[in-house]
C-alpha cells in the first residue's frame, strides 16, 4: 500500500469517527463547552475512546525505527512548556469556543456544503500563515 492511499483511507475513518461522534456539529461542541448551562458531557467520550485505542497501541510500537511501509518514524521533538504553548492553546481554545469547530471537524464539515465553512477555513489558513511569518 502506498502512503497516499493509506492517508486517504485513514482520513475517511477519521472523518467517519468525527461525524458519528457528533464533533462535526458546532452546537454539540458548544454544548460540551457550556459547563454552566445545560452541559452535554458526551464529547468527553470521544477523547476517551480515541485514547483508549491509541495509547496502548503507541506504547507497543513507539520504539520502532521504521513504519510498516518503511518510512522513518516521525515523532515531534519534546516540546517545552513555555509561553508559546500557553498562549497558543489559549488562543485556540477561545477560537474553538467562539464557533464550536476545531481543525478536523472544520474540514469534514465541507461535506455539508455550507459556504460559511469556506470562510472559517480561509480564516484558519490566514492564522497559520500569520503564525509562520511572525513566530517561526
Amino acid at each position, binding site marked *: *500500500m502506498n*502512503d497516499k492511499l493509506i*492517508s486517504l483511507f485513514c*482520513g*475517511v*475513518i477519521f*472523518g*467517519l*469517527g468525527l*461525524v*458519528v*461522534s457528533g464533533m462535526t*456539529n*458546532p452546537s*454539540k461542541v*458548544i454544548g460540551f*463547552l*457550556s459547563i454552566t448551562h445545560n452541559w*452535554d*458531557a*458526551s464529547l468527553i*467520550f470521544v*477523547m*476517551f475512546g480515541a*485514547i483508549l485505542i*491509541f*495509547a496502548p497501541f503507541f506504547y507497543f510500537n513507539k520504539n520502532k525505527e521504521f*513504519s510498516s511501509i518503511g*518510512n522513518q*518514524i516521525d*515523532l515531534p521533538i519534546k516540546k*517545552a*512548556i513555555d509561553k508559546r*504553548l500557553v*498562549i*497558543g*492553546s*489559549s*488562543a*485556540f*481554545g477561545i*477560537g*474553538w*469556543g*467562539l464557533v464550536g469547530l476545531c*481543525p478536523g471537524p*472544520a474540514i*469534514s*464539515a465541507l*461535506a*455539508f456544503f*455550507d459556504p460559511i465553512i469556506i*470562510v472559517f477555513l480561509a*480564516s*484558519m*489558513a490566514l492564522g*497559520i500563515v*500569520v*503564525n*509562520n511569518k511572525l513566530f517561526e
Partner: protein
Amino acid sequence: MNNFTPISALLGGILIGLSVALYFYTTGRLAGISGIFANAITNQTKRLSNIFFLFGLVLGPLLFSFTKEPIAFNITHSYLLIITGGFLVGLGTRLSGGCTSGHGICGIGRFSVSSIIATVIFIVTGMLTVVILQQFEIYI
C-alpha cells in the same frame, strides 16, 4: 443534561483512535489535523499524502450520509465569530503545535506532559469563552 449521547461519542472516538493508530503504524506519522492542514498549505514534503488525508476527512461524512442517518449541523452565521474564531484556531494551533487531535489524542496517548497541559488549557479557555458569550446571549 439534554442530548447526552455517550455511546455514539464513544464509537466515534474509537474510530478516530483506530485511524490514528493505523496511520502511525503504516506511515510513521502522527495524525494531528492542524499539522496536516498547515503542511498541506505551506510545505512541499508529503504534500499529496496530506491532501489525500484531508480529502478523506470530507469523504467520510459524505459516505456516512448514504446511511440516511440524520446528520445534525448547526453553526453560527455571524461573520465576526466565524472569522475571529477561524483565525484564532489557525494561529493558536500552530503556535502551540497541535489541536484537539494532535495534543488531545496523539499527545495524551503518548503521555506527553506539554500536550496534557495544552489540552487542559484549550478546554478551559473554550469553556470560559462559551460561558462569557452566553452571558451576552450571543450564538446562532
